[in-house]
Structure formats: C-alpha cells, structure tokens
C-alpha cells in the first residue's frame, strides 16, 4: 500500500453495522468465486436506511444501481464502525466496490481485524470526529506515514492515529503475507 491515497469521500454516521454494509440476504454469494465476488461490490452499503446514504445529503448511493464499482475511495464513519457480525464480507464488499480507506473514530474489533488480516482496507482512526466536517464527494488525501488527511475540497487537514501494533501486518498486506515474511509459514 502506498504512503498516500487520494480520492473522494463517502460519509456515514455512527454505529454502521455489518448488516448495513452488506445485508445478510447477499451472503450466499461465494467470495472465493471471482464472478460472484463482484456482487459484493454491487451490494456494498445496500443496507443503509433512508436518509443515511452519503451524508449530509443522505440520498447518495455508494454504488450506482446495477453497477459493481463505487466512485468513492474513502468511507468516513463515526463511532463503532463495523459493529455486528463477524462477516468478512463487510470489508470485502467495501474494497470490492473500489474503496481503499475507512476513517472512523473507532471500530468494532472483528471488522477492524478483518480489514487488516485480510488486507482489504486501511482502517484509520481519526483524532477528531470527521462525520460533520467532511461531506460526501469531498476530495481527500491520506498520508499514512505523516498521519494526516488533507481535505482538498474544504482546505482542511485532519490527524489520524498511528497504526500501532497492526502496522507490520498492514505493511505486509495481510496476516498471511506477514506470517510468511516472518518465517511462520513456508513460502
């Protein structure tokens, strides 16, 4: 993963649970099948209730109807992002739609772990609450080494917390790559 990532932001509220990210009715697709996997992109964020799709407007789809890819690179959340089930389909769906980074105040732990160990998304923790500062469609750029997020649309800069313990796994690209690099798994 490069040290800077730039793209558009999609803004959500607090307590975005895995049923909102990818509703249970779509879990019959097999993520290990390349053709079926694409559908997780199509249905990413399909469980968001009315008024909560892309804040502050609340009526902006993450992925256009009938399409597989999102125009958004960043997902911005508030507290407790990714709570609920252990389904790895959640970070996978966001990544499959094309997003690369989630920035939230804090995460439910299984979602966070799945982001990191599966190498799907970079889960950043914001120092301040961004849900009311960033608007859906704003152009953001995260500098992972510097721990900063620049909002090119609003002309603001925000801080994100250091990755800490999980940095070696993020840098490796997931737990398998990390374990191989550290001699825990044979090549």
């Amino acid at each position, binding site marked *: 993963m490069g040290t800077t990532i730039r793209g558009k932001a999609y803004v959500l509220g607090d*307590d975005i*649970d895995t*049923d*909102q990210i990818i*509703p*249970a*009715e779509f*879990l*019959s*697709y*097999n*993520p*290990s*099948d390349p053709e*079926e996997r694409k559908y997780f992109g199509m249905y990413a964020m399909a*469980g968001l*209730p*009315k008024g909560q799709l892309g804040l502050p407007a609340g009526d902006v789809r993450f992925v256009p109807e009938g399409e597989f890819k999102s125009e958004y690179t960043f997902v911005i959340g508030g*507290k*407790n992002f990714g*709570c*609920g*089930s*252990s*389904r*790895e*389909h959640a*970070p996978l769906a966001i990544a499959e739609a094309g997003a690369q980074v989630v920035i939230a105040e*804090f*995460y*439910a*732990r*299984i979602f966070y*772990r*799945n982001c990191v*160990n*599966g*190498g799907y998304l970079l889960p950043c923790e914001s120092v301040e609450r961004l849900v009311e500062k960033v608007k859906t469609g704003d152009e953001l750029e995260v500098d992972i080494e510097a721990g900063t997020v620049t909002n090119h649309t609003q002309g603001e800069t925000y801080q994100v917390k250091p990755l800490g*313990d999980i940095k070696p796994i993020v840098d490796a690209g*997931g*737990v*398998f790559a990390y*374990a191989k690099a550290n001699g*825990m*798994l044979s090549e």
Partner: protein
Amino acid sequence: MARPMTMTEKILAAHAGKTEVTPGENVWVDVDILMTHDVCGPGTIGIFKEKFGKDAKVWDNTRIPIIPDHYIFTAEDKCHRNIQILRDFVKEQGIKYYYDPDFLNTEAGSGMPNPYRDPNKTSYKGVCHKALPEEGHCRPGEIMLGTDSHTCTAGAFGQFSTGVGNTDAAFAMGTGKTWLKVPPTMKFTFHGDIPAYLTAKDLILAVIGRIGFSGATYKAMYFTGSGISSLTLEDRMTLTNMAIEAGGKNGICDVDEKTLEYVRARSNRPDWTVYTEDEGAEYDFEAEWDLGSFEPLVAAPHSPDNTKTARECSDVKLDRAYIGSCTGGKITDMIFAANILNGNQVKIPTFVVPGSTEVHSDMKRLGLNGEPVGPGDKCIEQILVDAGCMLGAASCAACLGGPQDTFGRLNEPMNCISTTNRNFPGRMGHKEAGVYLASPLTAAASALTGKVTDPREYVSEPIQTGTAGVC
C-alpha cells in the same frame, strides 16, 4: 510469582506458552477448536486453498466442527451450492465433526427443502452456537474460534471463545494458530437468585444498556456472583452470547459443578483445564447488581443498548413475535415461553424456531416443568402449536433476515418482539421494521396481548426447567 490474572488472561497465557500475559499484549496462541458454517465456510475454504495450496490438509480434522445452520430452509440455489462446498471439503479433508442437513438436495432448481421428519433421525443439528456444546465441543480453559460473531456464547463454559473472519479462520485452519491482543477484563457481578419473571436475557440487556453497545469493545466480559451460579448453563449462554452486542471480544463465566456436569456428559475429549480468577486480578470496569432490583427489559429499535423496561413500552403495538435463535431458541427458552402461552391464544403471528434439532426433540419430549411428559400431558411443542404459534425447523432462520423466503423473515415494515440478539436496521429483513429484543417470557406475554407486555402479568411462581438442556 506471576501477577494475579483473570481467567481470560490465564487461558491466553497457557495457549501462548507463557506464564503470564498483560492486557494490550499481542500473543500468538494455539487454537483448540475452529468452527465454521455455511455462510462463512465457503469463503474460508477458498482462502485456505488459495493460501495453503489446493492439496493442503487442515491442521487437525478432529478440531474443526462444521455446522451448517444459516441458509438451510430456502429455495435459493446458491445456498444449496454452499452446502455442497462444505460436503466436498468434509470428504476431502476427513473432517470428523460435520452435521449435514441430510434432507437437502444441492442440485440446482431443487427448491425449498423438506425439513427433517424426525429431529432425532438426522445428522443436521441447527444453530452452531447451540450445537457446539450439545455435541461436546465446548470445554473449560480452551480457545475456540468461529466464523460467527456469536461464537462468544461458548464462554459460558469457562473458555475463551471469539468470532473471526474468513481470513483468520483460514489461517487457523492451516496452522492451528492465531494472534490475539490480550483484552482487559470487565467484571459484572450479580447477587441473589433470579426472580421468576426474569431470564438471563434481561440481565444482559441491562448490562448492554449500562455500558452501551460499544462499551466492551476489545474487552473480556466476566460474569460472576451468586446470581450467575443460580442460572442454568443455557441461561449463562444467553449472557455470553450477547457479549458481542456490547462490542466484547469474549464473555466468560466461572466453572462450577453445573459446568462440569454438562461438559463431562457431552465432551468428546478428556484433556481440559479449569481456570479461576486470581485474587487481586485487575479489572478495567466493575459493576454489581442485585437481581431483586431488576424488572423485565426490552431493547427498542434500532440498537441493543436502547434499553427500556417492558412497562415503559406497554403502548407499543406489535405485528409479530419471534422466539428462536442461539440467544432465545434453547429448550429452556421454549419452556419459559410455553409456561406463559399454555392454554392461551396468541394475538399476533408468532413464529417459533428451535435452536437445534436437540431442542426440537426436547420440545416433543418434555412438558411444562422440563420433565418428560406423562400419558395425556402436552409436550412443549403441542402447547405452543395449540396456542397458535407457527413452528419452523431448527435453523438461524429470521434472526438475521437471510434469503427472502426465510421462515419468519420481516419482509415489510412492522414491529416485532424477538428473543434474538440484534436489532440494527434491516437485521431481521426489512430496513424499516422495528425489532424489540426481549426475553422469552416477555416475548410470550407480548404475543398474547399484541403489545409489549411485562411478563409479571402472567408469571408469579418460579418456572421449573428440570434437567432440560443438560443431560
């Protein structure tokens, strides 16, 4: 001497080959049991094969129970196909503990399967978190991972158990290992005996209401005190089951004679260790309750921490009641509900789904007091059906919505009172449906009135559950 430790810390230390661990420390541990099911199994198997090779063997085919339970009773071909993926993998790997829905034809276009005719005569079990202890996979002192957030249920047996994603499961499937951050422990003490009008569901809703549904994020939730000792193992499972609803990494209870009796009767391995909390162990948070001070609770839409008393919600009109799931579909839950519904008629459509085929079998075998029915007495199943309930086959069913044709799924906006565990928007189907989480007593009382109803209007004497759910 090692620092005083909690049960969770001791289990993680032992499995990391260390004499002590400290909260916040990352450790690699040996896993005892890895469970997967039909929703996350195919993805896990895919990653396992991609990363370890198509001819790779699992680390231990006696320690990977595979329990299909989520999308069984649906006509959707992809769900049937996923069962076939499990069947093929089980055969290829020689997986010893697999609980096949043997009535299910996986050919495309085979439609809605006809359920088992006799719950005693099928290899199928139903909801994994209920089947795991029934089939002897839960033991004190062990580490269990499962590809389901409610894997924390097994902590009722004094073990460390937590939910993981497909990648972590695939890693453990090949290596028998995972990395874990040692969680700080929160201690919840309950004093006194549980009153007749409460179940463990009310206790855990109170806990989540108090700390918030992210209040235990990354933490262990330890439940103790005379109030917990007084609970059956099944009711303790209701407590630990919902640890995840406060964000908890795991929930855990002390091991006592009830635990040992259950595990000795069920376990297929003799080698396990009982850990206890050390005097002086450090807690991140402590709270105490006197069970006599409680009243029946619900969690109103759309969050498990939106706790209110049932009385406060007495004007909420309901369209449906649902009694089922790993949280509220055990045999003791069914006995609780049956004691209120016995001889009455439900006022709203009421769906009952046994948590497992063993629960279903016990519903046919046992009566209101949890003992086998005598001649002329009604069994639990008959009581519920006579009260007007619709009975489904053992499965996760509508707890998580699932495919559109799932039994009991909320396919339109409505209010439902449910003994399940989660009430986020869309959890049971429709995004605009409102789910009230409640105990089986409160759900049954509400089914009779069509409004959220305090079960004290229907129950005064303690409900006996006998040896139901134990032997």
